[in-house]
């Protein structure tokens, strides 16, 4: 049993400490105080351990391609450093990619090229062959970037048969909505 802390460190303080964020001139001394506290306090160090375990879990799921998400070039650089095999399809607006996932692939990403300058928001809409639609609003993106990178859940992609999707990227700016591009992915399962 761990003794309860009388003055527990806030979760946000633990997060900033863990990620080494410097937000004020006195942060060095604040970090020292946090470290002193953690060395003396089993309860707060356990809470920091929970955060570390969360990070271990996120990294593990990311390595397994178990998270569908928007990623960035730095994420792909990390994946390369980790020795992960990334299958990627770079598609221009109006373009089409014949895609698959092979057994040795760890990650599968679509790199949707486009111009986002002036956009305040970016949405993506997936049109599936059966007529259904899947929309994700407010993607994280940089207006200065020239692509959005979508990582797929590899376990799901391995289960899918031959199917074609149309993906539309829609930007919102001062003038309303505009289509950034329409991208076609013709997926076929890998055959051994």
């Amino acid at each position: 049993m761990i003794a309860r802390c009388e003055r527990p460190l806030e979760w946000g303080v633990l997060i900033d400490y863990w990620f080494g964020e410097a937000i004020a001139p006195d942060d060095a001394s604040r970090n020292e105080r946090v470290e002193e506290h953690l060395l003396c306090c089993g309860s707060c160090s356990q809470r920091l351990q929970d955060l570390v375990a969360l990070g271990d879990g996120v990294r593990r799921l990311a390595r397994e391609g178990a998270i569908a998400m928007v990623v960035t070039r730095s994420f792909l650089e990390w994946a390369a450093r980790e020795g992960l095999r990334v299958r990627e399809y770079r598609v221009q607006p109006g373009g089409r990619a014949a895609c698959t996932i092979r057994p040795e692939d760890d990650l599968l990403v679509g790199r949707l090229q486009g111009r986002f300058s002036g956009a305040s928001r970016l949405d993506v809409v997936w049109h599936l062959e059966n007529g259904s639609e899947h929309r994700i609003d407010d993607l994280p993106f940089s207006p200065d970037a020239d692509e959005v990178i979508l990582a797929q859940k590899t376990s799901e992609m391995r289960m899918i048969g031959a199917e074609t999707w149309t993906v539309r990227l829609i930007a919102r700016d001062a003038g309303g909505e505009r289509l950034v591009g329409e991208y076609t992915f013709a997926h076929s399962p890998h055959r051994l």
Partner: protein
Amino acid sequence: MEPVAELVSDIELARQVAAGQSDAEAELYRRLAPRVRLYGLRHLRDPAAADDLVQDVLLTAFDSLRAGKVRDVEQFASFVLGTCRRVVASVRRTAERRRRLLERHRADLVPAESPQAAILDLARLTRCLSRLNERHRTVVVLSFCAERSAEEIGSELGLSAVNVRVQRHRALARLRQCMEGS
């Protein structure tokens, strides 16, 4: 030995260690080892190096305590922290050599997971991550995987560093709540 955390403080245990009580030493080691490991993970970002740090720091600290070299036993935690800092500085001086070795043998190494990752409910974590909005999910993954600072993440996502920090705080609070089932 029964857990004594609620009954005996770290300071009292340190006094008992200084007086040569081996039971107290085991209990104090049990308490301090995970805390020192966290310090190592935070500063070295390497589970194996953090494990080594625990051994190096606590061996030195307990030797000093037993030998009466810790002037103020009530400040034993500060003594341990000081030892952590010295050892980490020393590790960093040899980091380049270790980096070259890792480069050479990378293919032979299996990524180490902490024991906590093994017991984390990954299915639940997957569900909790899927419940985050896209921005939060991306910020969390970039923070943990790519180990990017708030400023670097912000430059990739067109956000200010302050905004990234706010989103990271919110995302991790939600993730924690979800993992705890609330």
